[in-house]
């Protein structure tokens, strides 16, 4: 009875709740959309026509290009214990936090914009594999 008396205010104040949340971002590529793409033959135009606009375009081997399509569907059920004190948002973190959640495909194009390679997986991992480097955020840049 005493335990109940202690727990009840916690539950009633919203500190402990069961939360079912789902976050869906962007439309996945259609099933089989990557099938039939031919390395060395398929062009950038054909890929854009078939897959639509990518989420990201990154530089690749000078005049080449890496195009990334991504999406996510995070379904989470949890018991949340929370005491909201303050909410903050940092714009410089938005890119990294977004790409970390996205699965998808990256298509690499050579200098003639012919398909060189198709990779699938988590976009953050695929981006690392390309060796692309993002410029440092202004607030973290180091002076000479």
């Amino acid at each position: 009875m005493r335990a109940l008396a202690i727990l009840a205010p916690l539950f009633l104040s919203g500190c402990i709740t069961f939360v079912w949340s789902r976050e869906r971002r962007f439309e996945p590529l259609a099933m089989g959309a990557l099938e039939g793409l031919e390395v060395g033959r398929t062009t950038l135009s054909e890929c854009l026509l078939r897959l639509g606009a990518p989420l990201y375009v990154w530089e690749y081997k000078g005049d080449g290009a890496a195009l990334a399509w991504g999406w996510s569907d995070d379904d989470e059920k949890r018991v949340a214990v929370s005491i909201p004190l303050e909410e903050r948002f940092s714009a410089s973190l938005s890119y990294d936090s977004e790409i970390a959640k996205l699965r998808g495909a990256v298509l690499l194009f050579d200098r003639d914009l012919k398909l060189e390679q198709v990779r699938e997986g988590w976009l953050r991992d695929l981006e690392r594999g390309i060796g692309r480097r993002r410029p440092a955020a202004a607030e973290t840049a180091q002076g000479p």
Partner: protein
Amino acid sequence: MPKTSPILPLHLGLLLLALLAPACFISRTTVNEPIWRADVDQFVPGRTTAKEVVARLGAPNEVVQLGSRTAYRYDFTVLKRAGFSLILVSFLNEDTRADRVWLFFDAKDVLTHAGATLQAADARYAMPWAHIHGR
């Protein structure tokens, strides 16, 4: 035989309303301006220049240098969020869809390739268990 007051159902109804009414919400967040298919269709690879694109769509959201080439990104994002809380349980759903256009230019700033995906209007208010977008 005990008599039930006719006021009781009314009180119960009001109590339920008071509990449930403030427990649900929807919100819509947009980023940038919508992109219209008619605008995108006017861009012709081999003819349209970067200057003409900017005159029609405004400044791009991102410019990527690809060696001697450049690529411009325009996008419009819609996030629809729906939530429902009932004392101990909370349901929250977020659905994000976007209009997106990438335009590729050669070293002379002439359009060479264009890709467009216009799906921002497909964003939906839903609960976590709902199947939307065919999933």
